[in-house]
């Protein structure tokens, strides 16, 4: 049981390049989330998914796209990277926000992305 994993752990891009971050979870969670973490700002939600085939915008969705083709995977895409997207990206998953009182969000280890 690996929990939530993210690929890659580090990446450096040039402005205008594209890339995809992969998040995988093996806990059979319905909900998955992508956050970005910038210094002094905590974590902010980019996009989330409440189930296979569904996605929704979070707080800071511009410049990103997502897909949830399989329940266990949640992809975050940058079509044309910009220096403002330099950040640490976290994926998280949860069974359901209306689940039992022990439910919570479980986080991956993060991906550090630098856009030059």
């Amino acid at each position, binding site marked *: 049981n690996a929990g939530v994993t993210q690929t890659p752990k580090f990446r450096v891009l040039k402005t205008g390049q594209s890339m995809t971050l992969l998040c995988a979870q093996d806990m059979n969670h319905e909900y998955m989330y992508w956050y970005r973490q910038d210094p*002094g700002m*905590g974590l902010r939600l980019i996009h989330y998914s409440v189930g296979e085939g569904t996605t929704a915008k979070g707080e800071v969705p511009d410049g990103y796209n997502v897909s949830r083709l399989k329940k266990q995977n949640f992809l975050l895409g940058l079509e044309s990277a910009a220096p403002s997207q330099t950040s640490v990206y976290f994926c998280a998953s949860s069974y359901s*926000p209306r689940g039992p009182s022990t439910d919570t*969000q479980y986080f991956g280890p993060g991906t550090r992305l630098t856009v030059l």
Partner: protein
Amino acid sequence: AQTVTQSQPEMSVQEAETVTLSCTYDTSESDYYLFWYKQPPSRQMILVIRQEAYKQQNATENRFSVNFQKAAKSFSLKISDSQLGDAAMYFCALWGIQGAQKLVFGQGTRLTINP
């Protein structure tokens, strides 16, 4: 809109002593959860403690406890017998049940443990 505010960017405490991290929040929802997450230098987000808003009793997990003041919208974290391994960034977070399905985080408090 939901907001979470941590007014202490940095805190420090002597090893074995007690420290309290502050958090205030705002939400229009009546049913919500509150969390404290720890982020050590490894970057991993680790759940420390959670509190259901409908429960009056403050949550406790070993050396970690919260002071939940619902009317004041305050949710502070108390760490007793501080250990060197407690050094980390601590984030307070709010999860509304009826509204958007997301965690809203505070800005974080960096906790330093002095030996």
